[in-house]
Protein backbone atom coordinates (compact mmCIF):
# COMPACT_ATOMS: atom_id res chain seq x y z
CA UNK A 1 0.00 0.00 0.00
CA UNK A 2 2.75 2.34 1.00
CA UNK A 3 4.67 1.53 -2.13
CA UNK A 4 1.69 2.17 -4.36
CA UNK A 5 1.04 5.52 -2.75
CA UNK A 6 4.61 6.58 -3.16
CA UNK A 7 4.63 5.66 -6.79
CA UNK A 8 1.42 7.47 -7.49
CA UNK A 9 2.45 10.61 -5.75
CA UNK A 10 5.83 10.59 -7.38
CA UNK A 11 4.41 10.10 -10.83
CA UNK A 12 1.87 12.84 -10.25
CA UNK A 13 4.59 15.24 -9.26
CA UNK A 14 6.43 14.39 -12.44
CA UNK A 15 3.33 15.39 -14.32
CA UNK A 16 3.13 18.58 -12.40
CA UNK A 17 6.77 19.26 -12.67
CA UNK A 18 8.87 18.47 -15.62
CA UNK A 19 11.47 20.38 -13.63
CA UNK A 20 15.10 19.66 -13.24
CA UNK A 21 15.07 17.93 -9.92
CA UNK A 22 12.14 15.66 -10.64
CA UNK A 23 13.46 14.76 -14.01
CA UNK A 24 16.95 14.01 -12.86
CA UNK A 25 15.56 11.54 -10.37
CA UNK A 26 13.49 9.88 -13.07
CA UNK A 27 15.86 9.39 -15.93
CA UNK A 28 19.46 9.52 -14.86
CA UNK A 29 20.47 6.39 -12.96
CA UNK A 30 23.83 7.94 -12.11
CA UNK A 31 21.98 10.77 -10.40
CA UNK A 32 20.06 8.33 -8.25
CA UNK A 33 23.25 6.52 -7.36
CA UNK A 34 24.89 9.82 -6.44
CA UNK A 35 21.80 10.79 -4.48
CA UNK A 36 21.82 7.62 -2.41
CA UNK A 37 22.70 8.21 1.22
CA UNK A 38 21.79 11.90 1.02
CA UNK A 39 20.35 12.68 4.41
CA UNK A 40 18.08 15.60 5.09
CA UNK A 41 16.91 16.19 8.65
CA UNK A 42 13.91 18.44 9.12
CA UNK A 43 13.24 20.06 12.47
CA UNK A 44 9.53 20.80 12.93
CA UNK A 45 6.41 19.34 11.33
CA UNK A 46 4.37 22.49 10.73
CA UNK A 47 3.45 23.75 7.25
CA UNK A 48 7.03 24.61 6.21
CA UNK A 49 8.73 21.46 7.51
CA UNK A 50 6.02 19.02 6.45
CA UNK A 51 5.76 20.51 2.94
CA UNK A 52 9.52 20.34 2.49
CA UNK A 53 9.51 16.71 3.66
CA UNK A 54 6.77 15.58 1.29
CA UNK A 55 8.15 17.43 -1.72
CA UNK A 56 11.71 16.23 -1.12
CA UNK A 57 10.42 12.67 -1.25
CA UNK A 58 8.33 13.32 -4.35
CA UNK A 59 11.10 15.09 -6.24
CA UNK A 60 13.94 12.73 -5.42
CA UNK A 61 13.09 9.45 -3.67
CA UNK A 62 16.78 8.74 -3.20
CA UNK A 63 16.91 11.46 -0.55
CA UNK A 64 16.49 10.08 2.96
CA UNK A 65 14.22 12.44 4.87
CA UNK A 66 13.87 12.42 8.64
CA UNK A 67 11.36 14.81 10.17
CA UNK A 68 11.54 15.38 13.91
CA UNK A 69 8.44 16.79 15.57
CA UNK A 70 7.47 16.83 19.23
CA UNK A 71 3.73 16.30 18.75
CA UNK A 72 1.96 13.27 17.32
CA UNK A 73 -0.95 15.44 16.24
CA UNK A 74 -0.62 18.90 14.73
CA UNK A 75 -3.29 21.58 14.97
CA UNK A 76 -3.20 24.22 12.27
CA UNK A 77 -3.20 27.83 13.38
CA UNK A 78 -5.03 28.70 10.19
CA UNK A 79 -8.78 28.20 10.71
CA UNK A 80 -8.29 27.99 14.48
CA UNK A 81 -10.18 31.29 14.80
CA UNK A 82 -13.20 29.42 13.45
CA UNK A 83 -12.91 27.02 16.39
CA UNK A 84 -12.82 29.97 18.80
CA UNK A 85 -15.83 31.46 17.01
CA UNK A 86 -17.77 28.19 17.39
CA UNK A 87 -17.77 27.58 13.62
CA UNK A 88 -15.73 24.38 13.50
CA UNK A 89 -14.34 21.63 15.72
CA UNK A 90 -10.84 21.07 17.08
CA UNK A 91 -10.88 17.75 15.25
CA UNK A 92 -11.28 19.56 11.93
CA UNK A 93 -8.05 21.52 12.40
CA UNK A 94 -5.96 18.52 13.42
CA UNK A 95 -3.74 16.30 11.34
CA UNK A 96 -1.52 13.29 11.98
CA UNK A 97 1.77 12.50 10.28
CA UNK A 98 0.50 9.33 8.58
CA UNK A 99 0.47 11.05 5.21
CA UNK A 100 4.14 11.92 5.54
CA UNK A 101 4.98 8.41 6.68
CA UNK A 102 3.31 6.89 3.64
CA UNK A 103 5.31 9.31 1.47
CA UNK A 104 8.44 7.65 2.82
CA UNK A 105 9.37 10.28 5.38
CA UNK A 106 10.93 8.94 8.56
CA UNK A 107 8.80 10.78 11.13
CA UNK A 108 10.34 10.83 14.60
CA UNK A 109 8.30 12.02 17.56
CA UNK A 110 10.88 13.75 19.70
CA UNK A 111 12.12 17.22 20.54
CA UNK A 112 15.30 18.62 19.03
CA UNK A 113 17.44 20.13 21.79
CA UNK A 114 20.53 21.14 19.86
CA UNK A 115 22.15 21.20 16.43
CA UNK A 116 25.89 20.77 16.03
CA UNK A 117 26.26 22.70 12.81
CA UNK A 118 29.98 21.88 12.47
CA UNK A 119 29.59 18.13 12.87
CA UNK A 120 26.24 18.35 11.03
CA UNK A 121 24.29 16.49 13.68
CA UNK A 122 20.91 17.01 15.30
CA UNK A 123 20.44 15.93 18.91
CA UNK A 124 17.11 15.18 20.59
CA UNK A 125 15.64 15.10 24.08
CA UNK A 126 15.11 11.37 23.60
CA UNK A 127 18.89 10.99 23.39
CA UNK A 128 19.19 10.31 19.69
CA UNK A 129 21.54 11.87 17.15
CA UNK A 130 20.80 12.33 13.45
CA UNK A 131 23.44 13.21 10.87
CA UNK A 132 22.59 15.38 7.91
CA UNK A 133 23.99 16.65 4.65
CA UNK A 134 21.40 19.42 4.73
CA UNK A 135 19.20 20.41 7.64
CA UNK A 136 15.89 22.23 7.33
CA UNK A 137 14.83 24.10 10.45
CA UNK A 138 11.20 25.18 10.64
CA UNK A 139 10.48 25.74 14.32
CA UNK A 140 7.79 28.40 14.00
CA UNK A 141 7.53 30.98 16.73
CA UNK A 142 8.22 31.47 20.40
CA UNK A 143 7.03 34.27 22.71
CA UNK A 144 8.81 37.15 24.40
CA UNK A 145 7.17 36.51 27.74
CA UNK A 146 9.79 38.62 29.45
CA UNK A 147 8.32 41.87 28.10
CA UNK A 148 5.15 41.73 30.19
CA UNK A 149 4.87 41.48 33.97
CA UNK A 150 2.68 38.68 35.20
CA UNK A 151 2.70 36.67 32.01
CA UNK A 152 4.60 33.45 31.28
CA UNK A 153 4.12 30.04 29.71
CA UNK A 154 2.32 28.76 32.82
CA UNK A 155 -0.11 31.70 32.97
CA UNK A 156 -0.79 31.16 29.26
CA UNK A 157 -2.59 27.94 30.10
CA UNK A 158 -5.45 29.99 31.59
CA UNK A 159 -4.91 33.44 30.11
CA UNK A 160 -4.26 32.04 26.68
CA UNK A 161 -2.33 33.34 23.73
CA UNK A 162 -3.76 30.55 21.55
CA UNK A 163 -1.21 31.62 18.93
CA UNK A 164 0.00 28.07 18.52
CA UNK A 165 -3.10 26.06 17.83
CA UNK A 166 -3.81 23.22 20.27
CA UNK A 167 -5.03 22.99 23.87
CA UNK A 168 -5.11 26.79 24.27
CA UNK A 169 -7.37 27.11 21.23
CA UNK A 170 -9.88 24.81 22.93
CA UNK A 171 -9.47 26.66 26.24
CA UNK A 172 -10.16 30.06 24.70
CA UNK A 173 -13.18 28.70 22.82
CA UNK A 174 -14.54 27.30 26.09
CA UNK A 175 -13.94 30.54 27.97
CA UNK A 176 -15.83 32.56 25.38
CA UNK A 177 -18.69 30.06 25.50
CA UNK A 178 -18.80 29.98 29.30
CA UNK A 179 -18.73 33.77 29.67
CA UNK A 180 -21.88 35.53 30.94
CA UNK A 181 -23.68 37.81 28.53
CA UNK A 182 -22.40 41.33 29.01
CA UNK A 183 -18.80 40.25 29.49
CA UNK A 184 -15.76 41.73 27.83
CA UNK A 185 -13.18 39.73 25.91
CA UNK A 186 -9.87 41.56 25.68
CA UNK A 187 -7.55 40.56 22.85
CA UNK A 188 -4.07 41.98 23.16
CA UNK A 189 -2.53 42.19 19.69
CA UNK A 190 1.26 41.93 19.35
CA UNK A 191 3.81 44.30 17.80
CA UNK A 192 5.29 43.55 14.34
CA UNK A 193 6.60 41.22 13.11
CA UNK A 194 4.42 38.31 14.14
CA UNK A 195 2.75 35.16 12.84
CA UNK A 196 -0.41 35.75 10.81
CA UNK A 197 -0.73 39.55 10.70
CA UNK A 198 -4.54 39.67 10.18
CA UNK A 199 -5.11 36.90 12.76
CA UNK A 200 -5.93 38.95 15.89
CA UNK A 201 -8.52 40.98 13.96
CA UNK A 202 -10.13 37.92 12.41
CA UNK A 203 -10.30 36.46 15.90
CA UNK A 204 -12.03 39.57 17.23
CA UNK A 205 -14.48 39.37 14.31
CA UNK A 206 -15.39 35.74 14.83
CA UNK A 207 -15.79 36.12 18.60
CA UNK A 208 -18.13 39.06 17.94
CA UNK A 209 -19.91 36.94 15.33
CA UNK A 210 -20.51 34.33 18.04
CA UNK A 211 -21.59 36.92 20.62
CA UNK A 212 -24.06 38.47 18.22
CA UNK A 213 -25.88 35.15 18.09
CA UNK A 214 -25.55 34.05 21.72
CA UNK A 215 -24.43 36.94 23.98
CA UNK A 216 -25.52 40.18 22.34
CA UNK A 217 -24.64 42.41 25.31
CA UNK A 218 -20.99 41.34 25.25
CA UNK A 219 -18.09 42.93 23.46
CA UNK A 220 -14.53 42.44 22.26
CA UNK A 221 -11.94 45.08 23.03
CA UNK A 222 -8.67 44.90 21.13
CA UNK A 223 -5.68 46.39 22.93
CA UNK A 224 -3.17 46.87 20.16
CA UNK A 225 0.58 47.27 20.39
CA UNK A 226 0.40 49.06 17.01
CA UNK A 227 -1.36 52.04 15.46
CA UNK A 228 -2.40 50.22 12.31
CA UNK A 229 -2.90 46.65 11.23
CA UNK A 230 -3.25 44.25 8.31
CA UNK A 231 -6.37 44.56 6.14
CA UNK A 232 -7.49 47.41 8.41
CA UNK A 233 -9.82 49.00 5.88
CA UNK A 234 -11.58 45.74 5.13
CA UNK A 235 -11.90 44.78 8.79
CA UNK A 236 -13.18 48.21 9.75
CA UNK A 237 -15.75 48.09 6.96
CA UNK A 238 -16.94 44.66 8.11
CA UNK A 239 -17.03 45.70 11.79
CA UNK A 240 -19.21 48.69 10.93
CA UNK A 241 -21.53 46.53 8.89
CA UNK A 242 -21.92 43.68 11.37
CA UNK A 243 -20.84 44.81 14.83
CA UNK A 244 -21.71 48.49 15.16
CA UNK A 245 -18.08 49.53 15.14
CA UNK A 246 -17.68 53.17 16.08
CA UNK A 247 -21.14 53.43 17.69
CA UNK A 248 -22.22 53.34 21.34
CA UNK A 249 -23.35 49.76 20.90
CA UNK A 250 -20.15 48.53 19.28
CA UNK A 251 -19.41 44.85 19.79
CA UNK A 252 -15.80 45.45 18.74
CA UNK A 253 -13.62 48.28 20.00
CA UNK A 254 -10.07 48.84 18.86
CA UNK A 255 -7.58 50.74 21.01
CA UNK A 256 -4.32 51.64 19.22
CA UNK A 257 -0.94 51.98 20.90
CA UNK A 258 -1.23 55.77 20.65
CA UNK A 259 -4.07 55.67 23.18
CA UNK A 260 -2.75 52.86 25.38
CA UNK A 261 0.95 53.44 25.59
CA UNK A 262 2.91 50.32 26.35
CA UNK A 263 1.18 47.16 27.53
CA UNK A 264 2.90 46.55 30.82
CA UNK A 265 1.26 43.84 32.87
CA UNK A 266 -1.34 41.12 33.10
CA UNK A 267 -2.93 40.76 36.54
CA UNK A 268 -4.18 37.21 36.31
CA UNK A 269 -6.03 37.11 39.64
CA UNK A 270 -8.00 40.29 38.97
CA UNK A 271 -8.25 39.63 35.21
CA UNK A 272 -6.87 43.06 34.45
CA UNK A 273 -4.73 44.22 31.52
CA UNK A 274 -2.56 47.19 32.49
CA UNK A 275 -1.04 49.65 30.04
CA UNK A 276 0.62 53.06 30.44
CA UNK A 277 -2.71 54.87 30.16
CA UNK A 278 -5.43 52.25 30.65
CA UNK A 279 -6.55 49.43 32.91
CA UNK A 280 -9.16 47.02 31.64
CA UNK A 281 -10.94 44.32 33.60
CA UNK A 282 -12.15 41.57 31.29
CA UNK A 283 -14.07 38.31 31.61
CA UNK A 284 -11.70 36.68 29.15
CA UNK A 285 -8.20 37.83 28.27
CA UNK A 286 -6.45 36.60 25.15
CA UNK A 287 -2.92 37.91 25.36
CA UNK A 288 -0.87 37.47 22.20
CA UNK A 289 2.71 38.34 23.16
CA UNK A 290 5.50 39.77 21.03
CA UNK A 291 7.22 37.01 19.10
CA UNK A 292 10.57 35.61 18.06
CA UNK A 293 11.86 32.51 16.26
CA UNK A 294 11.25 29.10 17.85
CA UNK A 295 13.61 28.04 20.63
CA UNK A 296 15.83 25.70 18.64
CA UNK A 297 16.76 28.52 16.25
CA UNK A 298 18.45 30.30 19.18
CA UNK A 299 20.12 27.13 20.46
CA UNK A 300 21.54 26.44 16.99
CA UNK A 301 22.85 29.99 16.52
CA UNK A 302 20.54 30.77 13.63
CA UNK A 303 19.10 34.05 14.93
CA UNK A 304 20.34 37.61 14.70
CA UNK A 305 19.67 40.60 16.95
CA UNK A 306 16.08 40.78 15.74
CA UNK A 307 15.31 37.38 17.25
CA UNK A 308 14.56 35.94 13.80
CA UNK A 309 16.68 33.97 11.33
CA UNK A 310 18.39 35.76 8.44
CA UNK A 311 18.65 33.65 5.28
CA UNK A 312 20.08 33.84 1.78
CA UNK A 313 16.87 34.36 -0.09
CA UNK A 314 17.70 32.09 -3.04
CA UNK A 315 17.87 28.87 -1.04
CA UNK A 316 16.78 29.94 2.45
CA UNK A 317 20.15 28.72 3.67
CA UNK A 318 21.02 30.42 6.94
CA UNK A 319 23.25 33.49 6.69
CA UNK A 320 24.73 32.45 10.02
CA UNK A 321 25.69 28.79 9.45
CA UNK A 322 26.13 26.67 6.31
CA UNK A 323 24.02 23.67 5.25
CA UNK A 324 21.10 24.70 7.44
CA UNK A 325 18.00 26.14 5.79
CA UNK A 326 15.46 28.07 7.82
CA UNK A 327 11.92 28.48 6.56
CA UNK A 328 8.46 29.42 7.65
CA UNK A 329 7.68 31.93 10.39
CA UNK A 330 11.17 31.75 11.96
CA UNK A 331 12.93 33.02 8.85
CA UNK A 332 13.35 36.59 7.68
CA UNK A 333 11.78 36.12 4.26
CA UNK A 334 11.20 39.81 3.55
CA UNK A 335 8.72 40.69 2.10
CA UNK A 336 6.78 37.46 2.46
CA UNK A 337 4.51 37.56 5.50
CA UNK A 338 4.63 34.96 8.25
CA UNK A 339 1.73 32.85 7.03
CA UNK A 340 0.83 29.21 6.41
CA UNK A 341 0.75 29.71 2.66
CA UNK A 342 4.17 31.41 2.71
CA UNK A 343 5.55 28.47 4.68
CA UNK A 344 4.02 25.98 2.23
CA UNK A 345 5.32 27.86 -0.79
CA UNK A 346 8.79 28.15 0.75
CA UNK A 347 8.77 24.44 1.62
CA UNK A 348 8.18 23.47 -2.01
CA UNK A 349 10.90 25.73 -3.32
CA UNK A 350 13.45 24.75 -0.69
CA UNK A 351 12.77 21.06 -1.42
CA UNK A 352 13.65 21.72 -5.07
CA UNK A 353 16.70 23.79 -4.14
CA UNK A 354 17.99 21.24 -1.64
CA UNK A 355 17.62 18.36 -4.13
CA UNK A 356 19.56 20.40 -6.67
CA UNK A 357 22.31 21.18 -4.15
CA UNK A 358 22.55 17.56 -2.99
CA UNK A 359 23.01 16.55 -6.61
CA UNK A 360 25.67 19.18 -7.25
CA UNK A 361 23.42 21.42 -9.33
CA UNK A 362 22.36 25.04 -9.26
CA UNK A 363 18.98 25.67 -7.67
CA UNK A 364 17.44 27.67 -10.54
CA UNK A 365 14.93 30.48 -10.12
CA UNK A 366 12.30 30.58 -7.37
CA UNK A 367 8.68 31.73 -7.52
CA UNK A 368 6.33 31.97 -4.55
CA UNK A 369 2.68 32.66 -3.80
CA UNK A 370 0.91 33.82 -0.68
CA UNK A 371 -2.82 34.01 -0.27
CA UNK A 372 -4.49 34.72 3.03
CA UNK A 373 -8.22 34.68 3.69
CA UNK A 374 -9.80 36.39 6.69
CA UNK A 375 -13.39 35.74 7.71
CA UNK A 376 -15.24 38.53 9.45
CA UNK A 377 -18.78 37.10 9.63
CA UNK A 378 -20.75 34.02 8.56
CA UNK A 379 -20.94 35.08 4.91
CA UNK A 380 -18.18 37.67 4.78
CA UNK A 381 -14.51 37.08 4.02
CA UNK A 382 -11.74 38.86 2.14
CA UNK A 383 -8.21 38.10 1.10
CA UNK A 384 -4.77 39.38 0.34
CA UNK A 385 -2.61 37.75 -2.32
CA UNK A 386 0.79 38.14 -3.92
CA UNK A 387 3.06 36.39 -6.39
CA UNK A 388 6.65 36.72 -5.22
CA UNK A 389 9.90 36.76 -7.17
CA UNK A 390 13.44 37.00 -5.92
CA UNK A 391 15.47 40.15 -6.42
CA UNK A 392 18.99 38.75 -6.03
CA UNK A 393 20.67 42.16 -5.89
CA UNK A 394 18.53 43.38 -3.05
CA UNK A 395 18.29 39.92 -1.42
CA UNK A 396 14.57 40.57 -1.31
CA UNK A 397 11.54 38.43 -2.15
CA UNK A 398 9.22 41.06 -3.52
CA UNK A 399 5.67 40.93 -4.77
CA UNK A 400 5.34 41.23 -8.54
CA UNK A 401 4.42 44.84 -9.27
CA UNK A 402 0.87 45.43 -10.46
CA UNK A 403 -0.24 42.05 -9.17
CA UNK A 404 -1.63 40.86 -5.85
CA UNK A 405 -3.19 43.07 -3.22
CA UNK A 406 -6.38 43.11 -1.22
CA UNK A 407 -9.97 42.23 -2.04
CA UNK A 408 -11.54 45.47 -3.26
CA UNK A 409 -13.42 47.62 -0.73
CA UNK A 410 -16.42 47.75 -3.05
CA UNK A 411 -16.72 43.99 -3.68
CA UNK A 412 -20.28 42.67 -3.74
CA UNK A 413 -21.81 40.75 -0.83
CA UNK A 414 -21.85 37.76 -3.17
CA UNK A 415 -18.07 38.00 -3.64
CA UNK A 416 -17.51 38.29 0.10
CA UNK A 417 -19.59 35.14 0.55
CA UNK A 418 -17.66 33.35 -2.17
CA UNK A 419 -14.43 34.23 -0.41
CA UNK A 420 -15.69 32.31 2.64
CA UNK A 421 -16.07 29.21 0.45
CA UNK A 422 -12.77 29.84 -1.33
CA UNK A 423 -11.08 30.23 2.06
CA UNK A 424 -12.40 26.85 3.10
CA UNK A 425 -11.26 25.38 -0.23
CA UNK A 426 -7.82 26.84 0.36
CA UNK A 427 -7.77 25.21 3.78
CA UNK A 428 -8.82 21.76 2.58
CA UNK A 429 -6.46 21.76 -0.37
CA UNK A 430 -3.40 23.18 1.34
CA UNK A 431 -3.77 20.87 4.31
CA UNK A 432 -3.74 17.91 1.92
CA UNK A 433 -0.81 19.40 0.04
CA UNK A 434 1.19 19.78 3.27
CA UNK A 435 0.43 16.64 5.26
CA UNK A 436 -0.98 14.32 2.57
Amino acid at each position, binding site marked *: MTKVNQNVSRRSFMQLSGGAAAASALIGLPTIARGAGKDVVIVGGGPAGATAARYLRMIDPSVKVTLIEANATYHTCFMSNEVIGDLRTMESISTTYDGLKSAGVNVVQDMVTSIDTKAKKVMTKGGNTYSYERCIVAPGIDFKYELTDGYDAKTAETITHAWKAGPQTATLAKQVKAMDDGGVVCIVAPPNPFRCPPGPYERASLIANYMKKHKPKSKVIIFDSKDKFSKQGLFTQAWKKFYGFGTDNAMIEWMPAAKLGKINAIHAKDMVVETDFEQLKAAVINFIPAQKAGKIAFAAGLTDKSGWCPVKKLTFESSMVPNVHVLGDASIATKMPKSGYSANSQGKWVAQAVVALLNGKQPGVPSFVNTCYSRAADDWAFSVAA*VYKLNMEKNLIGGVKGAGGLSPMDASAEDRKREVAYGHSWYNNIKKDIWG
Partner: protein
Amino acid sequence: MLRIKSIPAALAVGVLAIFTSINTASAEMASVQTLASPCAGCHGVNGVSVGPATPSIAGLTEAYFLDSMATYKSGKRKGTIMSRIAKGYTDEETKAMAKLFASMKFGRTTQMSDAGLAAKGKELHAEFCDSCHEQDGRKADGIGVLGGQIAAYLDYTIADFYSGVRTMEKRKAQKMNAFKAEHGADGIKAVVQFYASQK
Protein backbone atom coordinates in the same frame (compact mmCIF):
# COMPACT_ATOMS: atom_id res chain seq x y z
CA MET B 1 13.33 27.05 -19.86
CA LEU B 2 11.83 29.13 -22.62
CA ARG B 3 12.68 26.40 -25.03
CA ILE B 4 10.11 24.08 -23.50
CA LYS B 5 7.48 25.69 -25.70
CA SER B 6 8.51 23.81 -28.77
CA ILE B 7 8.81 20.46 -27.05
CA PRO B 8 5.89 18.03 -27.12
CA ALA B 9 4.42 17.67 -23.65
CA ALA B 10 5.18 13.97 -23.47
CA LEU B 11 8.87 14.61 -23.93
CA ALA B 12 9.11 17.64 -21.70
CA VAL B 13 10.26 15.82 -18.59
CA GLY B 14 13.10 13.99 -20.24
CA VAL B 15 14.28 16.84 -22.42
CA LEU B 16 14.15 19.45 -19.72
CA ALA B 17 16.62 17.58 -17.60
CA ILE B 18 19.20 17.99 -20.34
CA PHE B 19 18.72 21.73 -20.47
CA THR B 20 18.86 22.11 -16.76
CA SER B 21 21.93 19.96 -16.41
CA ILE B 22 23.67 22.33 -18.82
CA ASN B 23 22.67 25.49 -17.03
CA THR B 24 19.95 26.73 -14.80
CA ALA B 25 21.86 29.35 -12.88
CA SER B 26 21.57 31.95 -15.59
CA ALA B 27 17.98 31.21 -16.52
CA GLU B 28 15.73 34.16 -15.85
CA MET B 29 12.52 32.24 -15.63
CA ALA B 30 11.60 29.75 -12.95
CA SER B 31 10.99 26.18 -14.10
CA VAL B 32 7.37 25.39 -14.82
CA GLN B 33 7.45 23.05 -11.85
CA THR B 34 8.43 25.91 -9.57
CA LEU B 35 5.84 28.23 -11.10
CA ALA B 36 2.99 25.72 -10.93
CA SER B 37 3.54 24.03 -7.59
CA PRO B 38 2.11 26.91 -5.48
CA CYS B 39 -1.22 26.60 -7.37
CA ALA B 40 -1.89 23.47 -5.30
CA GLY B 41 -2.49 25.63 -2.23
CA CYS B 42 -5.95 26.49 -3.53
CA HIS B 43 -6.50 24.27 -6.58
CA GLY B 44 -5.41 21.03 -4.95
CA VAL B 45 -2.53 18.59 -5.17
CA ASN B 46 -1.76 18.11 -8.87
CA GLY B 47 -4.49 20.58 -9.74
CA VAL B 48 -7.31 18.41 -8.41
CA SER B 49 -9.39 20.35 -5.90
CA VAL B 50 -11.20 18.70 -3.00
CA GLY B 51 -13.53 21.73 -2.77
CA PRO B 52 -15.85 23.03 -1.50
CA ALA B 53 -15.51 25.79 -4.13
CA THR B 54 -12.14 26.18 -5.86
CA PRO B 55 -12.19 24.46 -9.26
CA SER B 56 -9.85 21.72 -10.42
CA ILE B 57 -7.44 23.00 -13.07
CA ALA B 58 -5.59 19.86 -14.17
CA GLY B 59 -6.67 18.70 -17.61
CA LEU B 60 -7.95 22.07 -18.75
CA THR B 61 -6.99 22.67 -22.36
CA GLU B 62 -4.18 25.07 -23.07
CA ALA B 63 -6.53 27.38 -24.92
CA TYR B 64 -9.00 27.57 -22.04
CA PHE B 65 -6.28 28.01 -19.43
CA LEU B 66 -4.67 30.81 -21.45
CA ASP B 67 -8.00 32.51 -22.11
CA SER B 68 -8.90 32.37 -18.39
CA MET B 69 -5.58 33.84 -17.33
CA ALA B 70 -5.63 36.50 -20.04
CA THR B 71 -9.16 37.65 -19.24
CA TYR B 72 -8.47 37.66 -15.50
CA LYS B 73 -5.39 39.72 -16.21
CA SER B 74 -7.20 42.23 -18.42
CA GLY B 75 -10.14 42.47 -16.04
CA LYS B 76 -12.60 41.20 -18.63
CA ARG B 77 -13.26 38.16 -16.46
CA LYS B 78 -14.00 39.06 -12.88
CA GLY B 79 -12.87 36.80 -10.11
CA THR B 80 -12.50 37.22 -6.40
CA ILE B 81 -8.78 36.55 -6.35
CA MET B 82 -7.53 35.21 -9.68
CA SER B 83 -7.49 38.65 -11.24
CA ARG B 84 -4.88 39.60 -8.65
CA ILE B 85 -2.87 36.36 -9.03
CA ALA B 86 -2.93 36.18 -12.85
CA LYS B 87 -1.20 39.54 -13.09
CA GLY B 88 1.79 38.06 -11.28
CA TYR B 89 2.89 35.97 -14.26
CA THR B 90 4.35 36.89 -17.64
CA ASP B 91 2.79 35.55 -20.83
CA GLU B 92 5.75 33.19 -21.17
CA GLU B 93 5.23 31.81 -17.67
CA THR B 94 1.49 31.48 -18.19
CA LYS B 95 2.04 29.57 -21.43
CA ALA B 96 4.37 27.11 -19.73
CA MET B 97 1.81 26.50 -16.97
CA ALA B 98 -1.01 26.12 -19.50
CA LYS B 99 0.95 23.44 -21.31
CA LEU B 100 1.75 21.67 -18.09
CA PHE B 101 -1.77 21.60 -16.67
CA ALA B 102 -3.15 20.56 -20.08
CA SER B 103 -0.86 17.54 -20.02
CA MET B 104 -2.30 16.38 -16.72
CA LYS B 105 -5.42 14.34 -16.16
CA PHE B 106 -8.58 16.04 -14.92
CA GLY B 107 -9.28 14.48 -11.53
CA ARG B 108 -12.75 14.15 -10.06
CA THR B 109 -13.38 14.53 -6.36
CA THR B 110 -16.37 12.64 -4.97
CA GLN B 111 -19.06 15.21 -4.25
CA MET B 112 -22.42 14.99 -2.54
CA SER B 113 -25.10 14.92 -5.21
CA ASP B 114 -28.79 14.25 -5.47
CA ALA B 115 -29.35 11.19 -7.70
CA GLY B 116 -32.88 12.21 -8.67
CA LEU B 117 -31.85 15.73 -9.66
CA ALA B 118 -28.77 14.40 -11.42
CA ALA B 119 -30.96 12.10 -13.56
CA LYS B 120 -33.17 15.01 -14.51
CA GLY B 121 -30.05 17.08 -15.16
CA LYS B 122 -28.71 14.42 -17.51
CA GLU B 123 -31.79 14.82 -19.72
CA LEU B 124 -31.58 18.59 -19.66
CA HIS B 125 -27.87 18.44 -20.44
CA ALA B 126 -28.60 16.30 -23.52
CA GLU B 127 -31.22 18.74 -24.70
CA PHE B 128 -29.53 22.09 -24.02
CA CYS B 129 -25.84 21.74 -23.25
CA ASP B 130 -24.44 18.76 -25.11
CA SER B 131 -23.89 20.49 -28.43
CA CYS B 132 -21.04 22.52 -26.91
CA HIS B 133 -20.24 20.60 -23.71
CA GLU B 134 -19.84 17.21 -25.33
CA GLN B 135 -19.54 13.82 -23.63
CA ASP B 136 -21.51 14.78 -20.53
CA GLY B 137 -19.45 17.95 -20.23
CA ARG B 138 -16.25 15.98 -19.91
CA LYS B 139 -14.83 16.92 -23.29
CA ALA B 140 -13.75 20.52 -23.30
CA ASP B 141 -11.85 21.81 -26.31
CA GLY B 142 -11.12 25.40 -25.48
CA ILE B 143 -13.87 25.54 -22.86
CA GLY B 144 -14.12 24.58 -19.20
CA VAL B 145 -14.60 21.00 -18.01
CA LEU B 146 -18.08 20.63 -16.48
CA GLY B 147 -18.33 16.88 -15.84
CA GLY B 148 -16.94 16.32 -12.36
CA GLN B 149 -16.04 19.97 -11.75
CA ILE B 150 -16.63 21.34 -8.23
CA ALA B 151 -20.36 22.13 -7.90
CA ALA B 152 -20.11 25.48 -6.09
CA TYR B 153 -17.75 26.75 -8.78
CA LEU B 154 -20.27 25.73 -11.47
CA ASP B 155 -23.01 27.57 -9.53
CA TYR B 156 -20.87 30.72 -9.37
CA THR B 157 -19.95 30.54 -13.04
CA ILE B 158 -23.52 30.04 -14.23
CA ALA B 159 -24.70 32.89 -12.00
CA ASP B 160 -22.00 35.15 -13.44
CA PHE B 161 -23.02 34.33 -17.02
CA TYR B 162 -26.65 35.11 -16.30
CA SER B 163 -25.92 38.29 -14.37
CA GLY B 164 -23.65 39.58 -17.11
CA VAL B 165 -20.54 39.60 -14.93
CA ARG B 166 -19.18 37.21 -17.53
CA THR B 167 -20.04 37.74 -21.15
CA MET B 168 -21.25 35.04 -23.51
CA GLU B 169 -20.98 34.56 -27.24
CA LYS B 170 -24.26 35.08 -29.05
CA ARG B 171 -24.95 31.41 -29.72
CA LYS B 172 -24.16 30.41 -26.19
CA ALA B 173 -26.28 33.21 -24.77
CA GLN B 174 -29.25 32.07 -26.87
CA LYS B 175 -28.95 28.52 -25.57
CA MET B 176 -28.41 29.55 -21.98
CA ASN B 177 -31.32 31.98 -22.03
CA ALA B 178 -33.64 29.47 -23.65
CA PHE B 179 -32.67 26.96 -20.99
CA LYS B 180 -33.37 29.35 -18.16
CA ALA B 181 -36.67 30.52 -19.68
CA GLU B 182 -37.90 26.96 -19.91
CA HIS B 183 -36.51 25.36 -16.77
CA GLY B 184 -35.53 28.18 -14.42
CA ALA B 185 -33.51 27.80 -11.23
CA ASP B 186 -34.60 24.18 -10.75
CA GLY B 187 -33.24 23.26 -14.14
CA ILE B 188 -29.92 24.89 -13.38
CA LYS B 189 -29.75 23.04 -10.09
CA ALA B 190 -30.41 19.75 -11.86
CA VAL B 191 -27.66 20.12 -14.48
CA VAL B 192 -25.15 21.17 -11.82
CA GLN B 193 -26.08 18.06 -9.85
CA PHE B 194 -25.58 15.98 -12.99
CA TYR B 195 -22.06 17.37 -13.48
CA ALA B 196 -21.22 17.08 -9.77
CA SER B 197 -22.37 13.44 -9.71
CA GLN B 198 -19.76 12.36 -12.25
CA LYS B 199 -16.92 10.28 -10.92
